């Protein structure tokens, strides 16, 4: 070594320059954005995944009011739904989880696995009026860990103009065969068939599940003949030009934007698009997603749960409970679910919603038939199944693998956990 000090400095500088890479390595202590449960007197921290609503929105005001009613000030922090789960884990690690947190339902089981959520029974929250299948996503080992704020799910929107022009009667779409036949007619009438989202994220799995379950598929056996049938259906549509190739990149939002161009006959999309559908500028209708051999396919439940993360200072729970009860009482559920265009989780509020807006009727039916992704004891196994599943969908639709081979590989990966 001619000049050890220089070498050391150079090596340090190099290491320094490369450390930026470490950021990708995950999990280092990037502390969650300015939230601390602390003992800051009467301030309670509240997180939600609704950055689209600012403080002046109905939702923002409701959160503030529930705090005031409980005698405290609520500091609301909104972030993107994918950020929320990770930030919650980091905050819990640092011991400053928020007092009340609204999380996407499949995240609940992960947070329970991390041991950072309180049982609703321990808090004394009443969940008896909530529909069982909606509550299911937040139930782990027979204990529930959150109160659903509302539910949404998927159905097929259709463009009435296009179907009329192609001489397709939406009532004739009863199973996969009749749906594919309808798509064929639309295509030969010069329009485009159907859009959906097959992106390689949780959204892709969410959109694939109605078809997977509609064929009778079982998430613990991805490569069964039923699972392959569902994937083959999608592949047949993409290969036949009934669905655009860019479904592989579509989020549910971009898929909706395609439908909103007025070029597509069908769109698999959610309750939350109803507001946009009225603005689309063409008459539309909604039918439930058909099962392989008729009937409605079971659809996955979407929507958020209000949860109360574990705090060192358990005296805070009383106020947290009041805030949760306030957010989930019938009157407030009605307002919130109307704002979000969600279906309420209780029969009483659903009836009020339908009375106000008859268009919601098919959606209430769909939600009643919906399943939680993490229900049926899957819990945190679901994420390890979902990721290989969306990868299989991508591999099959892009032509990289046959549906059978793609799902075989997915099953192997899911089996490893």
């Amino acid at each position: 070594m001619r000049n050890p000090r220089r070498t050391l400095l150079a090596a340090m500088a190099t290491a320094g320059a490369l450390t930026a890479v470490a950021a990708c390595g995950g999990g280092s202590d990037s502390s969650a954005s300015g939230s601390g449960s602390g003992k800051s007197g009467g301030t309670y921290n509240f997180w939600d995944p609704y950055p689209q609503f600012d403080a002046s929105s109905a939702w923002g005001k409701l959160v503030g009011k529930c705090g005031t009613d409980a005698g405290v000030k609520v500091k609301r922090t909104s972030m993107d739904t994918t950020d929320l789960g990770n930030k919650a884990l980091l905050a819990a690690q640092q011991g400053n989880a928020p007092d009340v947190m609204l999380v996407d339902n499949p995240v609940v089981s992960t947070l329970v696995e991390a041991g950072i959520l309180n049982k609703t029974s321990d808090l004394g929250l009443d969940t008896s009026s909530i529909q069982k299948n909606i509550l299911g996503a937040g139930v782990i080992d027979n204990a529930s860990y959150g109160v659903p704020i509302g539910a949404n799910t998927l159905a097929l929107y259709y463009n009435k103009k296009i179907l009329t022009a192609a001489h397709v009667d939406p009532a004739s779409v009863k199973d996969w065969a009749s749906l594919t036949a309808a798509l064929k007619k639309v295509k030969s009438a010069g329009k485009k068939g159907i859009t959906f989202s097959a992106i390689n994220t949780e959204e892709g799995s969410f959109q694939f599940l109605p078809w997977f379950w509609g064929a009778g598929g079982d998430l613990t056996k991805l490569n069964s003949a039923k699972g392959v049938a569902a994937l083959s259906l999608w592949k047949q549509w993409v290969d036949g030009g009934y669905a655009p190739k860019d479904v592989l990149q579509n989020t549910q939002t971009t898929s909706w934007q395609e439908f909103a161009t007025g070029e597509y006959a069908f769109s698999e999309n959610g309750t939350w698009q109803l507001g946009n559908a009225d603005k689309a500028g063409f008459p539309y209708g909604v039918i439930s997603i058909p099962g392989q051999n008729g009937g409605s396919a079971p659809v996955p439940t979407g929507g958020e749960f209000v949860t109360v993360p574990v705090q060192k200072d358990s005296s805070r729970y009383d106020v947290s409970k009041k805030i949760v009860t306030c957010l989930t009482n019938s009157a407030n559920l009605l307002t919130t679910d109307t704002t979000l265009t969600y279906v309420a989780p209780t029969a009483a509020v659903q009836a009020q919603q339908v009375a106000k807006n008859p268009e919601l009727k098919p959606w209430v039916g769909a939600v009643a038939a919906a399943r939680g992704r993490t229900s049926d004891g899957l819990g945190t196994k679901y994420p390890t199944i979902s990721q290989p599943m969306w990868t299989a969908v991508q591999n099959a639709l892009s032509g990289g693998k046959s549906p059978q081979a793609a799902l075989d590989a997915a099953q192997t990966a899911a089996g490893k956990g």
Partner: protein
Amino acid sequence: MTIARVDRRSQRSPARSGATGTGHRTSASDLRRRQRRRSRLTALAFIAPLIVYLAAFYLYPLYRNLDLSLRDYTVRSFVQGNAPFSGLDNFRTVLDDPTFGPAMRHTVIFTFASIAFQYAAGLALAVFFNRRFRLAGTLRALFLIPWLLPLIVSASTWSWMFNSESGVINYALHLVGVSPVDWLNSPDWALTSVVIANIWIGIPFNLVILYSGLQNIPAELYEAASLDGAGAWQQFRRITFPLLRPVSAITLLLGLVYTLKVFDLIWIMTKGGPGDASSTLATWSYQLGFGTLLPKFGPGAAVGNILILIALVFGLLYIRVQRRQEA
């Protein structure tokens, strides 16, 4: 820097104190020692902020990442902080994963294809702009645009342009009679698409550094060469290219490090898809750590460390090459 200057001063001081006379030798050496200690403390005070900064923002994250990769983290032990030490298990898991081979291969292809084209295009443009013609300044500024745009903007724009249904690139291909290509949706083209976008983003960096390198080549050399009858190509090959070698080396190394860790561009354009067709070590690491509902911090950190290790090897290689050039 600070240390070097202090050393020089303390070396010079004996000569100066010798001139002041021999009678006060003892007190002078006392004074000298005290002075030396003081200057050393001052030096430390100057360097302290840097050390604190390096420790807080480089060493600690690096240590945390290593720690994450050597422990068996589940979401529960991540929160409670009691993950058991598991040695190299995470690395073994990662190496055995069917994604590892493709991700490694894609990283190598992505990095080397990007760098080769960025460097070639950057060099060609630098030589071109070095010829000082009217509008050269304006045009050069225009070429910097990819560098100035936020990455999310350029990546989203490329993603729209490459869209297989309504993208402008397929439209252009259609105009010249080429059938549309599924740029981002086909396993054969996804990697190529992100490489193309990355080349576009990297050209300005190469252009700027190589252009500044060209300014340092004395014009007399070219005059002498043209008097000797050397053509443009010979001038480039015998003068420009050899004299640019040190600048080229640093450009290529920095490019390599930047390109190895490119994550956002790929994530925005394809998320590593379709399937694994465009996933690199960087996107895979993120996918493991944050891409699913159930984070796998350990394997994610392990992939990150492998990436750091690769970059470190090239860094050391660069230092070696540079030392040999100086010698």
